[in-house]
């Protein structure tokens, strides 16, 4: 069964038209700037929203593992060494300050949700986007869903990091209408430093998609201090220009720290050192460079 952490309706920045975006949980990368930190782990996780918590203590009362403490300031602290992620606390929480991230959906349940969007999908030339996490880490479930969407005449996009076995990619490729392919850094060492993995497999898979003539778009986060330097932009352009078939569009996604709250909810620290939002000037400069090379560029989508 597909294991998801979110489903977003009226999604307007994840491919053509208006889409419903399905977020799989679990990712082989751990990018420092990840704005969905709850998408990385393949397991359920507990999220705690301090600002919603009214300190009623309902959760403490039901916790069989004594993993929860209510502080005098009305905050709940979870002892993760004791917590077994049973989710009882989320059921009794009156304000939904505690929530579990990640659950199994049946295919029927998911297709029902997708089919509810047919009016907007048809009117806008939209579809469904499978994102994550890394949807290709759930190849069987993803393939089934892609086939079901194909049968229903719903345009499908797969938003991927590309860090998967090529055979998996080849397997789902015929069932996918469009790939949204992330390209972060050309230097493999630096790629490893910032995302936890090297980029050879990613670049190879991108070539594969291009060689097969599949419709794909590049999505590139722009992070000052990470990948906005001239060298990386030049190398990216050289690589893309050398591909057999070019992407139908390049999406430049300027860095933001909107995920700060999410890290807080996970009880983790966000390490922002070394990363900055690029200036508008810089973004435009990069946009112009891509356009000069004949690419269609969107900012933010």
């Amino acid at each position: 069964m597909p294991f998801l952490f979110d489903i977003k309706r009226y999604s307007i920045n994840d491919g053509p038209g208006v889409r419903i975006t399905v977020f799989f949980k679990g990712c082989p990368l751990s990018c420092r700037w990840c704005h969905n930190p709850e998408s990385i782990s393949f397991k359920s996780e507990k999220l705690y929203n301090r600002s919603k918590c009214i300190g009623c203590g309902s959760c403490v009362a039901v916790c069989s593992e004594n993993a929860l403490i209510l502080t005098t300031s009305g905050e709940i602290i979870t002892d993760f060494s004791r917590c077994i992620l049973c989710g009882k606390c989320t059921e009794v929480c009156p304000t939904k300050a505690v929530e579990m991230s990640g659950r199994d959906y049946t295919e029927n349940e998911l297709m029902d949700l997708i089919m509810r969007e047919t009016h907007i999908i048809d009117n806008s030339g939209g579809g469904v986007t499978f994102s994550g996490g890394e949807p290709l880490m759930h190849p069987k479930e993803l393939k089934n869903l892609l086939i079901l969407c194909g049968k229903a005449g719903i345009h499908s996009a797969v938003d991927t990091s590309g860090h998967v076995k090529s055979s998996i990619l080849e397997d789902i490729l015929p069932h996918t209408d469009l790939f949204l392919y992330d390209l972060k850094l050309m230097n493999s060492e630096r790629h490893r430093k910032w995302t936890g993995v090297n980029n050879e497999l990613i670049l190879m898979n991108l070539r594969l998609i291009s060689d097969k003539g599949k419709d794909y778009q590049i999505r590139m986060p722009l992070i000052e201090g990470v990948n906005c330097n001239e060298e990386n932009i030049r190398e990216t352009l050289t690589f893309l220009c050398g591909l057999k078939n070019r992407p139908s569009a390049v999406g430049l996604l300027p860095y933001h720290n909107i995920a700060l709250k999410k890290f807080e909810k996970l009880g983790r620290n966000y390490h922002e050192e070394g990363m900055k939002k690029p200036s508008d000037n810089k973004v435009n400069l990069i946009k112009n460079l891509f356009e000069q090379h004949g690419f269609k560029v969107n900012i933010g989508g």
Partner: protein
Amino acid sequence: MLEKKLIQNIRSVKKTEQDIVTQDEIQVKPGMNERIRRLREESVSTPATLSIERALIETSFYRKNEGKYSTPMMRAMNFMEICEKKYIYIGKDELIVGERGEKPKSVSTFPELTCHSVEDLKVLNTREQQRYLICEEDIETYKREVIPYWTGRSQRERIFSRVPEEWKVAYEAGLFTEFMEQRAPGHTCLDGKIYRKGMLDFKKEIEDSINKLDYFNDPKATDKEEQLRAMSLSCDALIRLGERHAEKSEELARHEDNPQRKEELLQIAKVCRRVPAHAPRNFMEAIQMYWFVHLGVITELNGWDAFNPGHFDQHLSPFYEEDLKAGRLTREEAKELISCFWIKVNNQPAPPKVGVTASESGTYNDFTNINIGGVKPDGSDGVNEVSYIMLEVIEELHILQPGSSVHISSVTPNRFLHSAIKVIRRGYGYPSIFNPDIYIQEMLRSGKSLEDAREGGCSGCIEVGAFGKEAYLLTGYLNVPKILEVTLFNGVNPVTGKKVGIETGDPRNFSTYEELYEAFHKQLRYVIDLKIRVNQYIDKMYARYFPATFLSVITDDCIKKGLDYYNEGPRYNTTYIQCTGLGTITDSLSALKKQVFSDKTITMDHLLKAISANFDGYEVLRQRIINNTPFFGNDDAKADDIAVKVYNDLFDLIDGRPNGKEGGKYHMNMLSTTCHNYFGNVMGATPDGRLAGKAISDGTSPAHGADTHGPTAVIRSLGKLDQVKSGGTLLNMRFLPDLLRSDESIAKLGSLIRSYFSLGGHHIQFNIVDNATLLAARKNPEEYRDLMVRVAGYSDYFNDLHDNLKQEIIDRTENEAF
């Protein structure tokens, strides 16, 4: 792209040197020339004032003539007296002329309907919101001349002396409001007839109708003759009003030194010599014709929701095309004239109410709602170049009135829809968006012919009618959630402890949800019956005492039938009851069903205690309800089925009931304007976790904060209501401005609108604002004077709103997906 094209268009037609503006200016305010800038500034900065002129003329006329003539004749003679004696104002930059009062923003009073007391006038002069200035001297004059005569004679006193006690109790509890207790029944629009016929043509038709009267067999023949003669006199009155403007213009021209203005004044005089006596021949005459007719309607009586030209772009288009072809008019000049008209409407604030609670619907907005786009009577696309000019005017002028709406049918091109969204993106709160494909069905269902339905549209806020052929009277709002509240306390209003409804049983003894619903249904039937009973009476009071003899001239088939607008004269006679709070009632019933009857997480007794305590000490319970109850607007059948049930029951209890006029019926619509705020004010806490005094949900929108699954879930929930059965529904959505920045996102919003309409939606409107702006505006009102927001069906200035209404707008769910 389109904007660019428009700018080029404007540039290409620019002729005079003084009109050439820098490119920067074009981008900010394309085309607004110096004249329009000055007129706009005057209109926006002039405070609303009260004019006692009309009341003085009328009182003196009635003192002299009371008892001498039939009622219709008295009304027509009174109208003539006002047109003959009122001060004629022509402002120095104006091209379109005529004011109801003595100057812009000056509002007449209507003591024959409801007579302001000295205290009322003083409060109006000094209150914080929606102030109407009036000087001491005028108050003294009013006290001396007007009040003594009308005391005991006004329509309002007449009505209140006769209504039953149980009605008064329910009315005071806020179970419903009554529109017609202070203002004449209004809500009407015009079709295209005044562009083909002048007042002299109408007089001829009236004469024909008199000649056809059958005094031997028709028992009403004599009454009809009186009515028709009064209608004929009303035509004369409007002609006189036109002539007096011509005379005044000529006089001003004689003393004018500026040759350009002199020429303009002579042109105005020429136009006023032609219309309204004759049909207009060109673009300028067409606009002036409508404006005289508008003034006639709002001077004769103070009908609710003023008056409305209907499909103004379609009416003006033939004149525009012909003038353009003949070289008599440029696009720029047409735009200037339309701008002049727009400002004229803004110069007419709504007549203020008495009693001065202002909570029910306190606003300067008089709800003139210009319909743009839509379909023609033959079903083809009604969008034309004038439609686009109007969108430009709306964007540039940014004034409170008139309200505007775009009508997006399946035959409407996307480029028009996208142009409209670009105006909406500015965050003015208008235009609102309507679906002719559904409202034409609504009208067909309620008995209109196909052509009449297509020529119809929306007036005021969202209610539909056959323009120029229908009296569709709005009688007041129904506070549906309050009826549940009264049911939960077995007929007692928990806010006052007073019995206001019928006893339907102690809900603590109900063992099933169905039993509770049955009790609510009984209470609902009782309140609706009570309201209708009194409506019938008030309706008759207007037919008897306040025939609208001028409005009858321009409304088919009053001339043919020889009957008044209020007395079965129109081709169609509809009475609406506006039901409010669908979101709040659904969520409350859903909470009761789940928490008390299905999951049994709490007992009824416990819940009643909690709401009686306004959830004080019950916050955990309140949070559990809010976060663990299916609410309306989330595409969740558990809640949506309840909404559909309530909606259908309201329909069954209201629709099709006779309204005392031949063939006339009651219909339901789902509108709240700002009344959801007043209704929330008179209520305690509700089972959905809403706190006492907070606004209930508006129109058919989800309750604030209840919709958490994005806009497509909202439109699907709303799509489950069979909206064709209504006379209008209302959906408010609020988007942040940066989410509509790109052209692609505009197209995407367009597809959201199309999707809602293909699901059967009647209307949708958007608030494009951000919280920071709203918070800042609340803090520093002076710096945000022109900040406008959309509040359920019309636009208002943010700073003119009540504090809790401001808060409501800040609270309203933001659609994060943008």
